[in-house]
């Protein structure tokens, strides 16, 4: 039996509660936030959802701040992240796509983005890992809060992201490898954040998924120089070839970016 895009059952919840109810256990539900990743798949006939959930009007578009704590709704645009979120999240947000795409793409979509067919996706994931973000989600078993590390490891299957909570770090820095071209993607992104929990470093774009860099964090903790610590990053990631850069080139650039990020951090970090 062949289904077609326009045969999908589409739900447009008008509140957080309706969104949770409509998502249910998430089985056979495709969630549309900004649409920048999924809409092309529909146009190409590769995605033919049975049930689609449009989050645009679900009231998940707010950033609430209390003290150093930011609660960022899943449907908040990357553009607003670039303006209002703490570093290194804001810095990496500024590298996403282009003006229009940043206005449409959402933090929830970026968090749940699968690896692209020819280039990395989810460049904000590095910043969220570095910040030790907590992900509020709904799905089978009700609402839940997971460390972003666990959420990414599980791949977000069967979960509806409601909001992402981050603490403003003491210091933070970010580095990204981007070659200017139309609709540019970030080939490689590094994020460092020093929070109450200590220093966390993460990389996006090196392999299929964003990764924490425990070896680098350990080396820094052990007082290694920025350069020596940065060199350890290659123990933490699997390097891949894609249309933007080879694994070889990523391997050359990654220690450099980590080194620069650490240097900028010790110089006070991004503001």
């Amino acid at each position, binding site marked *: 039996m*062949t*289904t*077609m*895009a*326009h045969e999908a059952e589409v739900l447009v919840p008008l509140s957080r509660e309706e969104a949770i109810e409509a998502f249910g256990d998430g089985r056979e539900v495709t969630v549309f936030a900004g649409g920048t990743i999924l809409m092309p798949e529909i*146009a*190409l*006939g590769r995605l*033919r959802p049975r049930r689609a959930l449009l989050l645009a009007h679900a009231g998940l578009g707010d950033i609430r701040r209390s003290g150093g704590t930011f609660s960022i709704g899943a449907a908040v645009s990357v553009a607003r992240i670039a303006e209002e979120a703490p570093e290194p999240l804001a810095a990496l947000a500024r590298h996403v796509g282009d003006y229009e795409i940043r206005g449409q793409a959402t933090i929830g979509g970026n968090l749940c983005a699968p690896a692209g067919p020819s280039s990395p996706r989810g460049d904000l994931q590095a910043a969220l890992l570095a910040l030790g973000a907590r992900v509020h989600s709904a799905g089978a078993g009700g609402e839940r809060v997971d460390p972003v590390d666990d959420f990414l490891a599980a791949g977000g299957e069967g979960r509806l992201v409601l909001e992402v909570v981050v603490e403003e770090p003491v210091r933070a820095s970010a580095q990204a490898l981007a070659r200017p071209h139309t609709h540019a993607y970030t080939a490689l992104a590094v994020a460092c954040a020093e929070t109450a929990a200590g220093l966390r470093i993460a990389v996006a774009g090196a392999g299929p998924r964003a990764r924490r860099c425990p070896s680098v964090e350990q080396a820094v903790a052990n007082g290694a120089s920025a350069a020596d610590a940065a060199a350890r990053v290659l123990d933490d990631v699997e390097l891949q070839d894609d249309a933007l850069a080879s694994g070889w080139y990523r391997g050359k650039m990654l220690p450099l970016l980590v080194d620069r990020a650490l240097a900028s951090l010790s110089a006070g970090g991004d503001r």
Partner: protein
Amino acid sequence: MKAVGARLPRYDGLGHVTGRTAYVDDVRVAGMLWTKALRSPHHFAAVRSVDTRKAEELAGVHAAVTHADVPKNLYGHLEALGVPADEPLLADGEVRYKGQPIAAVAAEDEATALAALDLIEVEYEEREPFFDVRKAFDPDAPRIHPWGPVYPHFGPHDHRRIRKGDVAAAFDRADLVVQGVYRPTAIEHCPVEPQTGLAVPEVHGRLTIYSCTQAMYFSMGVVAAHLEWPLNKLKFVGGTVGGGFGGKVDTATETICALLAIKSQRPVKWRWTREEEFLASSTRAPWHMEIADAVTSDGWIIGRRMLTLHDAGAYTRFSSYGLTKHSFHHTGAYTIPNLDFNGYVVYTNRVPTTAMRGFGVTSISFATEMQMNRIAKVLDLDPWEVRLKNANRVGDTSANWVALSDPSTVPVVQAAAKRVGVELKPEFRLMTKDRRSGDLLPDHLVEQLVSTDGGES
């Protein structure tokens, strides 16, 4: 007021900035169907069977076509110039590149057409593909084209050749031989308007074809050939195109739209997706060029040996034309009297390459100019002076013995030097493009002049 020489705005500029300019995709015809094509998922495979019956039964599908529906399926862009046909409109028995069209359907909307593709049953038998032109003659290279590893129809030869002067003597005489390899790669044409065609059945059995072709009569000829129709049964409507750069010299959508329109008796549109543009549309050819130049220590290039491998992709299209053009210009903007050029059109299992801005010459401009700068470096000479010294002059002959009537190599080089504040030595600053004489007519350049100038010089 004179129009010629005036900085007049575009004739169609107001249409562009108001969004009123109508491209093919903007034409509205009642009852129009949408087309999608089933493309090969393999680089190289035998196609054992194609069955479109289930697709044709899907609600909303009005027609499907395969090679069996094409009166003249095998076509060659250059048949008129004596180049035999080698490319099927729709794959017949084998697919030679990933993305090659095998069947096409016309349906009420794009989603239905896409769904119908899933219902087309094709049996493939994968074969080992071939990609590196340099290995074309290796004993273990897979045979991928019935004509062999290279295009065999340059008269009696399997390569385009240029022979001029006495190259062996030049290489003996040379103080140095500078040799290099140059490999500009394939790029996409990337016009913002994708390939789009719309075929509308008219009364009296005519077809109106709205086309984004760069060449209406050329494409009309292609469609007429496939359909085996006289030209008066076709009307091409176009002339306004959203960028081409050579890629829209291919007649990519028109014939298949025509076949589907004839079969369904409905207007049929085919608008390629950007993914099809990137993965299945023709590209600029990748080139492999090896140059050995016989040079004198004072900077004359007295002889050139060259090997060019043109990566044609899976079918010939315009490749033999492009390579011949390449050979005619393989000395660039300079006069090199002794030449031995051998160029091959090599088949690989990639998307067929086609014309693109600078066709055949973009490659040689890169190779020749890199080679010039290397020669200057190796000889420790000024790259401006090496260029001016070897520059084409009035009365010089080109690689294929055409007397150059008014070459501007000298003036453009002088103007560029002046613009960036480079002080040329007087003899180079005052040099003209005029006929050679004195120091600028050394022995090795006499013969190439004499033989076309009846001894004047």
